């Protein structure tokens, strides 16, 4: 595969990262060299090999289903770039 300007625009959009000419130019170069590198895997025969997502060899441990009250609203909101009346503030969404 080859990464074109349109690919960079598309994946930047999916990643919610704003682009410009210079960024796109650099990324086309970098991402193609990375792509070429990772495509070495095409040499490996993987028929009938199950994908390995995690090396954890235990059943997921479930916690007891009980309520715990944290009540840290103020602390949590203190890290927000903008908040008002115990809510996060974002640019207007509805017209």
């Amino acid at each position: 595969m080859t990464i074109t300007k349109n690919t960079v625009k598309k994946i930047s959009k999916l990643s919610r990262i704003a682009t410009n000419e210079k960024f796109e130019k650099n990324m086309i170069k970098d991402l193609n060299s990375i792509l070429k590198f990772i495509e070495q895997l095409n040499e490996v025969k993987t028929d009938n090999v199950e994908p390995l997502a995690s090396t954890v060899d235990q059943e997921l441990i479930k916690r007891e289903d009980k309520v715990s009250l944290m009540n840290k609203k103020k602390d949590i909101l203190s890290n927000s770039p903008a908040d008002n009346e115990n809510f996060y503030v974002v640019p207007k969404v509805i017209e």
Partner: protein
Amino acid sequence: MSEIYNLTLCQIIEKIKSKEISCEEVTKSFVNRAGKSKKLNCYIEDTFDQALKKSKDQDNKFESDKKLFGAPIAVKDLFCTKGVQTTASSKMLEGFKPEYESTVTSKIWNEGANLLGKLNCDEYAMGSSNETSHFGNVINPYKNDKDLVPGGSSGGSASAVAACLTSATVGTDTGGSIRQPASFTGTVGLKPTYGRCSRWGIVAFASSLDQAGPMTKDVKDSALLLEVIAGHDDKDSTSAQNKVEPFSQKLKKDIKGLKIGIPKEYKIDGISKEILNLWEKGVEVVKSLGCDVKEISLPHTRYALPTYYIIAPAEASSNLARYDGVRYGFRAEGKDLIEMYENTRSLGFGDEVKRRILIGTYVLSSGYYDAYYLKAQRVRRLIKNDFDEAFKKIDTILTPTTPSSAFAIGENIDDPIAMYLNDVLTVPANLAGLPAISIPAGYDQNNLPLGLQLIGKPFDEHTVLNNAFAIEQSINFKSNFKDWWM
């Protein structure tokens, strides 16, 4: 008497407990030295005043049953510390003060250590030279005619331990981020088995690979720190329930009869002659200690790095979706919500982070998921199978940690692939979830430290540590830089 800051973590704690030195004297010793070492740029933020105050209190209220009593410890700035800025070295998180403490660091404070500060690293732990940090390069205390990188991503941690600016530290290792900088700075770095330590409260990079671990002056210190930070945590469902042994008390240097494998595929193209000589020296050492050394094969080794550079960015692109300019950290303005997200992420992340988010998004996107992401997960299984097979016949694997010694700042920054190749010998242990340690084993002709790596069976840190301890005692490595930055 030699300066307190030169002592190992275990020596410091022993001297505090025997009342030979006070907690306050210890903290002062590190605070003074770290204060005069700003040029190395190890600390993003210090908590010297709080640490000094706490150490005074500790001298008045002695708790000799605590394993790390009185030890001043700075940590990689990837661990959330309650009320203390945690940035992951990113502009995106500048000013972020978590309202909770990571499990690993809270275990350290519960044993009587005090936070000395937050240590520089590559942005979101993505890098092998500490050059991607928003807060600038960390400098290696070892140098030749130029300033050298400390390795990465735990570069601030490695330099701080080597230069005696903290008694010990914890880093994180996703593809070599503890072991490679340890090798570059002549220090010890241990990546535990995946699941050994809780990941709760650590800024996430690639969740199926990330693991916290000790970075210390010697093997015994790593053993002690591991027994403190290991263990199951209800808040991390991937943390293991395996018993945590008192690793430091069980250390022994008699490793006679241990079966050690030498993987022939690790003699990669481009590896320096000096690294091969060091490896040979390591083999001679373990033979002289009565170990049974045999060549083994890990046939898929050369595919580990390409596999890693699909899986890690894929997981990162998902983990880093949370930085949206709404809940914490940096926000850029935009005419609507979407533009605000896009501008925030464009200005808040550095280039390497953006590269990885884009490549991760690409390999997960519709039409490419099977060809890249699932393919990589299949190769990951083959890599793990190689290790499973090898460990039927051997106890540990001995390799070099890195293909070269520390390089100059700026040398590899324009070529992502050249930078990625730093981790070619460390990445396989992450993909297979295995414990691995780097210990300093010698110097190259430019007087720069080189490390040897030992890889063990899952949850067999005990054997890895004993093996490392025996080699360490036999080689007797001594750091030999001058304090040129003061």
